């Protein structure tokens, strides 16, 4: 046990680099030595530094993963956000090549006025393209468009040994399919080429209506998959009995050519953003203060109820909304997560095949209620399978649940997650590392399958034999 073989002459990493790096949900943090490279040479220098000091390197994009995916306690963390140049843009055919630190925000603002929109966007535009590729993110159009990986044509990746390789479906295709969704473990994306989506308006046709229960929620999705581009369901996790699973659905479609009388107007950036005050006169930057009193069970119950009944009263609503307003509503309520209080929040998002989803979700919602741990925000989406090695997607549904964390409920949340894991596994479901804080090794083996994990490990061994690239998540689930 005595640690004698410590090299006490090694140069140490400077204290000035030491930073507190929180999980996006704020329920945990780590200290890391943070480096912010702007060039590939600087990246390579950090690889050398890490080797010299016996430290591992974690990658971080916008840091929007809810848990520990972009954290690397007591080691080096590379904040990739300064590698944010657009390297090539071809407005004739919608191909774009970007550095990994380019954000979704930067991306859509760069291309929209040319008549393009990113084929997949996340619920916040603060994510980076590198981080989105690292998790293979999906949007509210996952059932139509698949994950972002389906739109990546090629990428350059810096390996732990300092070499750069190019990967696509034709070249290094095994690495291509494993590094997308590979959690920053196989290599560092340095350039990513994607195909953007042609749009003929800056607006979407949006329809909102309420659904009285879970079955109605499901039937809405099944009936509208063909005739829409985006659907998202928003559920009131407090509704019980016959009303279990009730909530709102938002459906949106691109406008066909000609439908927008003035597309060049609607695609202008100044016509995309939401006004800086919501609800009339309350400045958006302090809305979270008003939300805070409601972030306890009865408070959220009240809001959910009011929202549901207001929706029912006014019936289905149709409107045309700017893309940005439809996709990034949360970004216009800065710091909304502060409403969750000092303990932060975690998200639990299982993915379940369509055949077993309804029963499994019913069971999960009921379980949360029985355990008196209903979640505050539940978002419901439809997905399609893809061919990436560690994919979270399948032909079915996902339900993203936000749980508020306090000192006192931590243990109960952990136990609840274990119980939910069982339901998900029984239903042949899957999990999503971007959202995860609680997954256990054995659960990961159970849903991914040992052979998939072995394949991933074999690639890791080939591309990074010294295990230079690591994160808290990697050690927790695969370490």
């Amino acid at each position, binding site marked *: *046990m*005595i*640690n*004698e073989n*410590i*090299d*006490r*002459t*090694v140069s*140490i*990493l400077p*204290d000035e680099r*030491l*930073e*507190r790096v929180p*999980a996006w949900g704020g*329920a*945990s*943090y*780590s*200290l890391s030595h943070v480096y912010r490279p702007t060039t590939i040479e600087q990246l390579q220098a950090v690889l050398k530094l890490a080797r010299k000091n*016996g*430290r*591992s390197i974690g990658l971080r994009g916008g840091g929007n993963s809810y*848990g*520990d995916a972009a954290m690397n*306690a*007591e*080691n080096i963390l590379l904040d990739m956000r300064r590698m944010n140049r657009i390297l090539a843009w071809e407005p004739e055919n919608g191909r774009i090549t970007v550095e990994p630190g380019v954000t979704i925000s930067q991306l859509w603002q760069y291309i929209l006025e040319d008549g393009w929109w990113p084929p997949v966007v996340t619920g916040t535009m603060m994510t980076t393209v590198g981080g989105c590729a690292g998790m293979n993110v999906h949007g509210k159009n996952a059932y139509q468009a698949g994950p972002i990986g389906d739109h990546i044509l090629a990428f350059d990746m810096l390996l732990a040994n300092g070499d750069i390789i190019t990967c696509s479906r034709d070249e290094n295709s095994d690495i291509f399919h494993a590094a997308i969704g590979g959690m920053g473990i196989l290599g560092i994306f340095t350039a990513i080429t994607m195909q953007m989506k042609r749009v003929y308006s800056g607006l979407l046709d949006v329809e909102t209506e309420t659904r009285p229960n879970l079955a109605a929620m499901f039937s809405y999705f099944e009936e509208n998959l063909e005739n829409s581009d985006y659907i998202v369901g928003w559920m009131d996790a407090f509704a019980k009995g016959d009303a279990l699973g009730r909530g709102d659905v938002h459906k949106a479609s691109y406008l066909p050519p000609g439908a927008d009388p003035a597309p060049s107007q609607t695609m202008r950036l100044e016509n995309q953003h939401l006004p800086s005050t919501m609800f009339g006169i309350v400045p958006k930057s302090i809305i979270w203060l008003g939300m805070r009193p409601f972030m306890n069970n009865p408070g959220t119950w009240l809001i959910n109820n009011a929202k549901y009944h207001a929706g029912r009263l006014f019936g289905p609503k149709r409107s045309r909304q700017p893309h940005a307003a439809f996709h990034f509503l949360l970004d216009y309520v800065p710091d909304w997560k502060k409403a969750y209080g000092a303990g932060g929040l*975690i998200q639990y998002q299982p993915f379940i095949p369509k055949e077993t989803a309804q029963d499994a979700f019913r069971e999960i919602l009921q379980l949360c209620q029985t355990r008196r741990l209903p979640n505050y925000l539940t978002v419901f989406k439809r997905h399609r399978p893809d061919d990436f090695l560690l994919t979270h997607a399948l032909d079915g549904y996902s339900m993203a649940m936000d749980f508020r*964390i306090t000192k006192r409920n*931590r*243990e109960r*949340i*952990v136990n609840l997650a274990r119980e939910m894991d069982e339901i998900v596994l029984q239903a042949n479901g899957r999990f999503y590392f971007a959202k995860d*804080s*609680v997954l256990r090794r054995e659960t990961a083996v159970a849903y991914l399958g040992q052979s998939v994990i072995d394949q991933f490990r074999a690639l890791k061994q080939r591309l990074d034999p*010294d*295990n*230079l690239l*690591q994160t*808290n998540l990697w*050690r*927790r689930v695969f*370490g």
Partner: protein
Amino acid sequence: MSMNTTATTRPLEPEKRAIIIGASSGIGAALAKEWARRGYIVAALAPDEAGLEKVAAEGNGRIHTYLHDVTNYDEIPALCQQIIHDIGGVDIVAYIAGIQPVVALDEYNFEKDAAMIRVNFVGAVAWLNQAAVRFERAQSGQIVAVSSIAGDRGRVGAPVYNASKAGLSTYLEALRNRLTRQGVTVTTVKFGFVDTALLENAAKTFWVISPEKAAQEIDTAVRKKKQTVYAPARWGLVSLIIRHIPSFIFRRMSF
């Protein structure tokens, strides 16, 4: 060098991680075992290999040991970083190391005196400065060090031991004043008599507690985020009296 060593963390089930400097015998050894029993991950440091191994053997695999003499000040920054890297973080740094060689009433031995200052005081500064930087960055963390009621007054029997502990207490007070506003707790534990090797040469003792009891006192003080505690508490009263004895009387006293 292996890249694999950093310990795993689970976001919602954080384990406490503690570094104990001076953990091969006496109070420090008992504290390492107490915290291992409570499920903490412990890094135990001292120069005595055999002592450390014994402590680790009773730690359910939760005690990681490091050979270290605090007077090797130069190695402290690198060693501190290495340990925290190995155990994946740190929540508590406990400075327990201390020596008290026998000093006769008419003895002015610089070697002994300097050794006490180096271990009891300078070593504490070297380690706790490291802790302070990290905890300030983290906006969280706990520092605890063992001082002594012997540091409350200078006495005929132990001038430099007294001074080293007085220095330590004052340093800790200043750290506390700097760090409280950064979310960091600094705890000073002042013992009376604890039944350890250090006490073997003491002339007369009373209210002696076991090292295990002493370890529990430290643990309680840390968990309650205390500032300064006398342990057991009645020593607080003794200290109050001692501190108020006028100098003209104190000069004539023999203890």
